[in-house]
């Protein structure tokens, strides 16, 4: 991606936003320990750091979602202290979250003007609303129908609703927290385009992102945080991906991926799928061998997660067959799949994976609880010992195992899920986006886990939206598009371009 020509800037850039010694703690966690940052007007200022480094907290403080414990915030030279996002918005500070906030039942236009609808004596003026929306969308260059129900939109378009909402209040500063995490490659490119346009129109963007390439492409200045402290703020031009990683970690990362162990060609087939049809899956046929990591690539919504859920018995299968090992049939429910040796790490830790209020130990032992009990009574000492051993194997670090799992970092939470799954000793493991929202250090630990499992003879289906990850780990790649497996790539042809080509072909029809 080429760096585009810089738009004209005011002659003497001055800080539009200044944070002075801002600190915030949540319970016993010091999320921000006195951070000072100055953001120039009309620039993209990126904030990077590992999970838990405090970057989201910083964004939320600027946007008025949380109040700092101490420190001052100057907006255009004037001290401000927002008590709510609404107050911030009134002062021209908007925010766009990773999961957009829209009222699903209301239309796009109603969402944009939520709370400031044109009205006369309390009666809404529908026509005026439509006109105002049309003018706003045109000025932003968005092609988004104002009458569509916001809930029916895709994430990318819902984010546009949030951007329009900020623009409608004439926001000069927009905080974007991981705006592209849930977007496909094309939607990401569109959002980048929007950011560039906003900045060239003189607006200021604070961009919080995990994606270092995105950060380097888009931003003028980068601030690196580590453990709630400022590491440095420097021009983006002076940084590289590895310099940022080093600053975030406090050390350099030797290699992103462990070495692959290619399984022997005569390895037994563990999972055999024939013409599987399920909701969201048109047809899927493939084999998985022992020790193999099979990558499942494709756009968001291409049917990868649906396929995984159908295989695991979490969703109904319409027709076709799934055969597990020599013993035959797959289970028709997650419970039966687990006892047949097929396990799944679900896509969302929070919604489908963990029980946040319960302890780490209880979450880890959940699937194997029956074997850790006698006559239905849980043997706690045994449970703790078993869970602890596996949690340590899975590299869950620095956490008390009696603490609620929701208090752990994203990386540790994911490792707890691995521990639970591995306690079931699966022969086939489906990992759906196992590193989403996980920091770099934990990513590598998860890669190591997957690789060593495969080396031990487990067959792995790896679903990931990060192509790097698929290419770095998988021995073979299946590309899905609109519910079908459209390409199988192995060896030399397993390249980024080939995967993207297969995933995106016919994309226009899919969008329409």
């Amino acid at each position, binding site marked *: 991606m080429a760096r585009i020509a810089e738009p004209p800037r005011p002659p003497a850039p001055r800080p539009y936003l200044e944070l002075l010694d801002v600190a915030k703690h949540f*319970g*016993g*966690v*010091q999320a921000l320990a006195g951070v000072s940052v100055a953001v120039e007007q009309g620039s993209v200022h990126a904030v990077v750091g*590992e999970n*838990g480094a405090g970057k989201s907290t910083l964004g939320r403080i600027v946007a008025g979602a949380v109040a700092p414990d101490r420190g001052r915030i100057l907006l255009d030279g004037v001290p401000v202290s927002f008590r709510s996002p609404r107050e911030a918005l009134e002062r021209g500070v908007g925010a766009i979250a990773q999961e957009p906030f829209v009222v699903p039942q209301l239309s796009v236009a109603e969402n944009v003007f939520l709370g400031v609808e044109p009205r006369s004596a309390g009666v809404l003026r529908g026509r005026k609303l439509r006109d105002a929306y049309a003018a706003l969308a045109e000025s932003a260059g968005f092609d988004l129908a104002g009458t569509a129900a916001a809930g029916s939109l895709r994430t990318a378009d819902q984010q546009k609703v949030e951007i329009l909402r900020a623009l409608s209040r004439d926001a000069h500063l927009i905080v974007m927290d991981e705006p592209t995490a849930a977007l496909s490659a094309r939607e990401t490119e569109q959002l980048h385009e929007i950011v560039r346009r906003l900045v060239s129109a003189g607006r200021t963007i604070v961009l919080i992102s995990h994606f270092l390439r995105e950060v380097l492409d888009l931003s003028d200045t980068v601030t690196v945080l*580590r*453990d*709630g402290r400022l590491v440095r703020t420097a021009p983006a031009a002076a940084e590289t991906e590895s310099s940022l990683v080093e600053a975030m*970690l*406090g*050390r350099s990362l030797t290699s992103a991926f462990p070495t692959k162990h290619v399984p022997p060609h005569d390895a037994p087939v563990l999972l055999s799928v024939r013409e599987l049809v399920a909701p969201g899956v048109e047809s899927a046929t493939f084999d998985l061998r022992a020790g193999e990591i099979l990558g499942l690539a494709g756009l968001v919504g291409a049917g990868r997660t649906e396929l995984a859920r159908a295989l*695991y018995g*979490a969703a109904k299968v319409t027709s076709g067959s799934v055969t597990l090992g020599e013993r035959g049939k797959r289970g028709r429910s*997650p*419970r039966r799949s*687990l*006892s047949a040796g097929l396990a*799944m790490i*679900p896509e969302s830790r929070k*919604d*489908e*994976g*963990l*029980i*946040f*209020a*319960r302890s780490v130990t*209880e979450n880890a032992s*959940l*699937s194997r*609880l*029956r074997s850790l*009990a006698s006559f*239905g*009574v*849980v043997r706690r000492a045994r449970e703790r010992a078993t869970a602890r051993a596996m949690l340590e194997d899975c590299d869950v*670090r*620095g*956490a*008390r195992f*009696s*603490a609620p799992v929701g*208090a*752990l*970092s994203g*990386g*540790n939470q994911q490792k707890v899920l691995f521990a*639970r799954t591995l306690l*079931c000793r699966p022969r086939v493991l489906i990992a759906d986006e196992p590193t989403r929202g996980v*920091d770099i*250090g*934990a990513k590598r630990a998860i890669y190591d886990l997957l690789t060593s499992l495969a080396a031990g003879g487990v067959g792995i289906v790896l679903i990931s939206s990060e192509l790097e990850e698929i290419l770095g780990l998988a021995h073979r790649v299946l590309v899905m598009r609109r519910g079908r497996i459209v390409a199988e790539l192995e060896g030399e042809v397993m390249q980024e371009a080939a995967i993207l080509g297969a995933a995106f072909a016919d994309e226009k029809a899919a969008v329409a």
Partner: protein
Amino acid sequence: MSAATTKLIAQRGLDTPALARLRRVGILLPFAILFAILSLTSSSFATKVNLLNILDQQSATLIIAAAGTLVLVAGGIDLSVGAVYSLAGVTAAHFAVHGNPAVAIALGIGAGLLIGVANGVITTMFRINALITTLAMSFIVGGIATLVTKGNLLVLFDKPGFGKLARTEFLTVRTSIWLMIVSVLVIAFVLSSTTAGRYMYAAGGNAEAARLAGVRVNAIRILAFTISGGAAGLAGVIDTSRVLSAQAANGDTALAFTVLAGIVVGGTSILGGEGAVWRTVVGVLFIALIGNGYILLGLDPLYEQITMGVILLLAVGLDALARRTG
């Protein structure tokens, strides 16, 4: 991960904010304060007679509330317990009038279990909201109870054999209290120490996650409703034996809400996945102490309801506050 990050995460578990700590102790503190105040202001409060009398009166509520805790933890709610309590009471009374007291007791509890199973099956397999299901069930069961009694008060004063269940003294304490203690302990043990109890927390905390982890969420919820129905049945039978009479519509819905209030004041979350039986016991007794206090101190009982409402709101409000900040 850097050493500093590791340290940061390690701190999370150690330093609990004051509010969260307060929430853990929860109802125990106000209970102790109220108990102390009543002991100081009324000479007749802290007497064995008064305290045992409270326990005797509350035994049915305590049993039902203990079991109701399981339903709430598992992510459901049971509003039919008042009606089930009433049906079990009149069923037992009906059969005790003409037959063997043991059979009458078994039939009363059996009716409760049966309705519990029905509640569980309807809410899980047919996916009908638990609040509506059990409310509807409450009307149906209340109607059946009236059919059994034909609208009369069933009197058992000439059947002292049936009264033995709850009215026998053992170690100077009535069997109604002993039965309550045993039931509550068993229910508490189920929730805290068995696989079924764990699955209840999992099902209520995150049903989809529990299902994907291999927990039979529907089965565990049916079990919770069954225990709740059985407990309401047992409570109805005990109270019939205690007062040697039974009547349909014995304050059906009022009891269901008193039970719910006790559970929630105790600190069990109405959203599921969190809670404990001991909390419920303290919650129910806290409410009972307020009622007792009003009588002993001769206060205008008109204010009792208002006090109750305020306390309920406070309990739920504190829970919500702790959730947001903790």
